[in-house]
């Protein structure tokens, strides 16, 4: 670039502005072409020598890398024609080879000359290339067995196989143990089907009957007292009577129904149980429970045998 600026300055000397600019522009174009050539030539020649020198001295990878860095901006096209001495030196020097490419036409003679001059002992470019090519091809085309068991050594092979088998068996054992543990943990846990089985339908039916019974009883009980105002004493009395009688009759109806059919028996007991707790005195088990509870209170001081006497003395015979 220094060269270019110099040229510009030399042109700047003439007087006027516009034409000068134009001229300068034109001149620039013309110059550029010329200059480029010149520059290229110059740089190339200079650099060429440098590169050759370096290539000759080449030893380590680092140097090579450096070269590459320097050269890269210059590299325009790749030329197929490789230079002998570089090839011979190392595969790594391919970068340099490229760099030489664009100007190969001009420089070939020089470089070859240089090569011959400086390293006469090396094989000829063409021969070396072919040999290298063959060798390289051989290497690249070689099929390395892709055996996962590793290298070919038979002893090692056996070891690896054994190890793998062992691992497998270990894994199996572990898996089994895990499964077992899981099954113990998930014992009794049942996943459900997407449809309702007959048993489920039956259960829903039972529950529905219970709900219906309760709702009907509630509506009866609450409809009866609708017109009355519990805050007035007269109504309150009536209410009380009605409540008792209506509810008792309701209950009796149920029990009689239950007695009617055996299938209804379970259902009605269910319903009875449903609203049972509200009216403990009416439950069959009323006395039983209360006595039982009393007994449990006493249980601390009285003997166990006495307590069981309250309820299951006959039960024990029943169970057997």
């Amino acid at each position, binding site marked *: 670039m220094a060269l270019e600026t110099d040229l510009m300055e030399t042109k700047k000397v003439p007087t006027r502005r516009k034409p000068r600019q134009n001229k300068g522009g034109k001149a620039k174009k013309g110059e550029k072409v010329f200059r480029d050539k010149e520059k290229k030539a110059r740089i190339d020649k200079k650099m060429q020598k440098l590169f050759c020198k370096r290539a000759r001295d080449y030893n380590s990878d680092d140097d090579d890398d450096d070269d590459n860095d320097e050269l890269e901006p210059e590299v325009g096209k790749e030329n197929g024609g490789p230079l002998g001495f570089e090839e011979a030196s190392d595969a790594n020097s391919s970068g340099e080879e490229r760099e030489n490419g664009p100007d190969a036409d001009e420089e070939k003679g020089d470089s070859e000359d240089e090569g011959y001059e400086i390293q006469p002992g090396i094989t000829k470019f063409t021969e070396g290339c072919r040999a290298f090519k063959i060798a390289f091809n051989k290497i690249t085309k070689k099929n390395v067995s892709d055996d996962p068991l590793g290298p070919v050594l038979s002893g090692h092979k056996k070891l690896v196989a054994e190890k793998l088998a062992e691992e497998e068996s270990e894994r199996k054992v572990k898996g089994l143990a895990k499964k077992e543990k899981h099954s113990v943990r998930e014992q009794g846990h049942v996943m*459900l089907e997407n449809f309702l089985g007959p048993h489920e339908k039956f259960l829903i039916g039972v529950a529905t009957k219970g709900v219906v019974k309760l709702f*009907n009883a509630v509506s009866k009980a609450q409809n009866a007292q609708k017109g009355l105002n519990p805050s007035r004493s007269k109504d309150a009395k009536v209410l009380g009577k009605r409540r008792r009688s209506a509810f008792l009759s309701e209950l009796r109806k149920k029990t009689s129904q239950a007695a009617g059919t055996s299938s209804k028996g*379970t259902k009605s*007991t269910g319903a009875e149980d449903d609203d049972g707790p509200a009216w403990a005195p009416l439950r069959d088990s009323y006395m039983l429970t209360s006595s039982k509870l009393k007994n*449990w209170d006493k*249980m601390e001081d009285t003997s166990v045998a006495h307590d069981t006497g309250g309820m299951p003395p006959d039960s024990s015979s*029943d169970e057997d």
Partner: protein
Amino acid sequence: MARFRSNRKKKNVFIKPTVKQPIVDHVTGDKIPKSFVFSRGKLPNSLKQLEMDLRKLMLPHTALKLKEKKRNNLKDFLNIAGPMGVTHFMMLSKTRSSPYLRVARTPQGPTLTFKIDEYSLAVDVARSQVRPRCPKELFRNSPLIVLSGFGTGEQHMKLTTIMFQNIFPAIDINTVKLSSCQRIVLLNYDKETKLIDFRHYSIRLQPVGVSRRLRKFVQNHQAPNLSTLQDVSDFVTKAGYGSESEADDDAATVSLASDIGRVNRASTKSAVKLQEIGPRMKLQLIKIEEGLCSGGVIFSDYGNGGEARNQENQEDEEGDEEDEEGDEED
């Protein structure tokens, strides 16, 4: 802020009795039963989930967020139970053979021990349904309980009945609001297999005698698609298809005492629809003890014959304890 907080606390304390007292009146004088659901020993994940489901089922009179630690023993819970007014314990445990559920009255028993033959979680139930429905409002009121098939006359069944009846607050028919009955717990005893089916359903009411379209229209608040109809009147008059489940049984219809919600009026009839929520269990009554997880054995499914049976049971107990200890060690 401090003031505000203190106000809040007072409010909380104040609200609770107002909710409970009116229910207590008509009952035999019992308090409202409250429950703890907790585990004994270490539980696998699915059983922990079952524990949570059971807690939800026992809502609202239960400790939903009861924290248990490994070192908590039964006495700890019992000590809290007194001042908190907790009347029932439900204890889940797991041995190598199967999971167990113990239902006990505090502080002095009796204790019923059930073997859980099979169970499914609320999640499983919801997964098996096309449209699972489980709004939070369901759990604001305690469920109804229906015991079916328990009237076999055997003493231990009676005891079981009583236990389960008293685990939920009693209903007074004259004052109960039907809108508060939203869930139902069903215990169905099968005489032949001696297994108890434990189910938990939500109760839904639907007006009867209205076409499905109209019902949906009223319930959903959405503009119906009339593009396929010739006339608006078709929407009302066309019957549409009716599925099997749509057919209304007379058995499932109810005339209500009062309006429930916007749709179910007292004047119209409503159909009761149950949809399963919550856990499902198949229980087998194994043992009844007099005390709280201790004391003499009233009933045992294992042995047969008076004292010998008792001894056996005690041995069994010891065996069980050993099992549990073994599990804990694991």
